[in-house]
């Protein structure tokens, strides 16, 4: 089995309000999958269906090879909710102990795991203080530790970096990277695109309850923006560059054009050299996720 999540036509309606219209997606084993969309697009409801918190109105799905809502499969799943609230009368250590026991862990194994995680999320000093005294960032970190207690195969993170300071964000990023290295899969809901860009292997854009586009970030299909700094630019040169791409334009002393493929770059360089033009810079940029997001969503649905 190469996929950890597979759904077909999942739908959730609350009365007449459709939260998720058609969720059809596959997340591969070992993959960090970003689920992106504006607020209200149905990201959290989708995640809740995968976790068995919400029963779908229609459609089917499997998580870790078991049907949605399967109790046993949860032993290998971890989850950090968006609006995390925990039993605030417990100390950090007690909190992890109870949740570890709910995972079926006990004894020395659990104790070692708790200490390991407290260190990982930098809460050893605060471990014996009640959670009610924790800051938001600390609560999120203890929540993250909670989601990793069982060394999960699949971790669900709902907006894991919103409300965190930069250090907290780095920690989340590190943990996601470490999980991938261990072969675990991560499903991240987010509207913070720059975060997603650096951590995710693949993303899906969700708009009004439907997945509108799915793509791998590494092999990001489509256009690259080529930026050139040249010794000499004239109209003939610009016209000549047009054979390599479209939208050739001159901005702030730089020449930019949009090429369809990175493979065009060496051709451009060779052609420029042949023309006797000095090249001071030749750079290619993929569209940022943000640009893609706007393209997919349309200008009316901005992130956030």
């Amino acid at each position, binding site marked *: 089995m190469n996929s950890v999540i597979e759904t077909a036509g999942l739908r959730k309606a*609350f009365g007449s309000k459709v939260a998720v219209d058609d969720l059809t997606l596959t997340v591969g084993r070992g993959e960090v999958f970003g689920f992106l969309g504006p607020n209200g697009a149905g990201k959290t409801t989708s995640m*809740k269906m995968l*976790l*068995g*918190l*919400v*029963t779908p109105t229609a459609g089917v799905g499997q998580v870790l090879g078991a049907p949605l809502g399967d*109790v*046993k*499969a*949860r*032993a290998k*799943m971890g*989850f*950090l*909710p968006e*609006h*995390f*609230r*925990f*039993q605030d*009368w*417990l100390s950090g250590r*007690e909190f992890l102990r*109870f*949740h570890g*026991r*709910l*995972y*079926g862990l006990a004894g020395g194994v659990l104790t070692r795991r708790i200490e390991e995680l407290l260190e990982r999320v930098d809460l050893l000093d605060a471990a014996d203080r*009640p959670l009610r005294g924790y800051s938001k960032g600390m609560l999120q970190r203890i*929540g993250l530790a*909670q*989601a990793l207690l069982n060394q999960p195969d699949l971790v669900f993170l709902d907006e894991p970096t919103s409300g965190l300071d930069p250090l907290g964000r780095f920690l989340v990023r590190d943990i996601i990277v470490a999980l991938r290295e261990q072969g675990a899969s991560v499903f991240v809901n987010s509207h913070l695109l720059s975060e997603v860009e650096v951590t995710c292997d693949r993303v899906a854009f969700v708009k009004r309850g439907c997945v509108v586009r799915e793509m791998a970030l590494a092999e990001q299909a489509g256009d690259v923006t080529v930026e050139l700094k040249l010794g000499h630019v004239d109209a003939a040169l610009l016209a000549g560059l047009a054979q390599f791409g479209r939208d050739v334009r001159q901005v702030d002393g730089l020449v930019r054009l949009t090429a369809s493929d990175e493979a065009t770059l060496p051709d451009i360089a060779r052609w420029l050299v042949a023309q006797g033009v000095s090249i001071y810079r030749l750079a290619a940029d993929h569209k940022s996720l943000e640009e893609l997001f706007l393209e997919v969503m349309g200008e009316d649905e901005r992130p956030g």
Partner: protein
Amino acid sequence: MRGILTVAHLTLHEVKGRKVALAALILGVAFLVVFGVGLYFVYRDMIGGGLGFTPSRAQQNVGLSFLVMAGLYAVNFLMVMMAVLMPVDTLAGDIRSGVIQTLVTKPVRRASIVLGKWLGFWVVLALYLVMMAGGVMLIAWAIAGFEVQNAPAGLALMLLEGTLLMTLSILGGTRLSTLATGVMVFGLYGLAFIGGWLEQLGAVLGNVTTQNFGIIASLIVPSEALWQLASYVMQPPLIREVSITPFSVVSVPSTGMLVWALVYTLGALLLALRQFGKRDL
């Protein structure tokens, strides 16, 4: 089973962590002290001629029984409060705040979470009842040598009453808000309470319609009927028929009512498991 016990343990922790146990303990002890001091002075007058005459042991027992039943009646009321208030927020509050989300996504059935909470609160309720009712009985025995008859049966009936109301409170939380649950369960308790009185009053007055009306109310919520049964078994025959007091029982709830109360409690628990099991969280 592991899930149930872990959640029950967590619930005990909650009762402790939220200072419920401490408040109940301190005020419980205060209640017992007041009861003990009162009983001591009444009994001193009784045997020391302070009443103007020295009552016989049988007469003393009438007075002592009245006092002890008054104490148990108050304990019963406090236990009802505990039974309803302790768990009233446990599901509704956890659902509203989101605390429930990391619980129900663990490899534990939702039913185990409800049963664990139920068990945890039930243990606290039982301990509270034993401390309070047991305290009243122990004080009466220590100070005046008065023994409550059928104490275990009486306590069991009172505990069943508390269990029934506690289960209703948990059931409400699977669907309603905290406040709505509180209003509902106390409303039902009030209905049972007035129904119980109507039944007794109807029996005293020989008015069968009123009596039956009260019995119907007890069928809707059998909590007060259980108190009346408890109060009936704990009093000697002579005393329980003297006059109409909160603890005199003229119309004795039947065994059928007891069975109904058990079925009712079990039904409420099963309904709570079902409702919580299929609810979107």
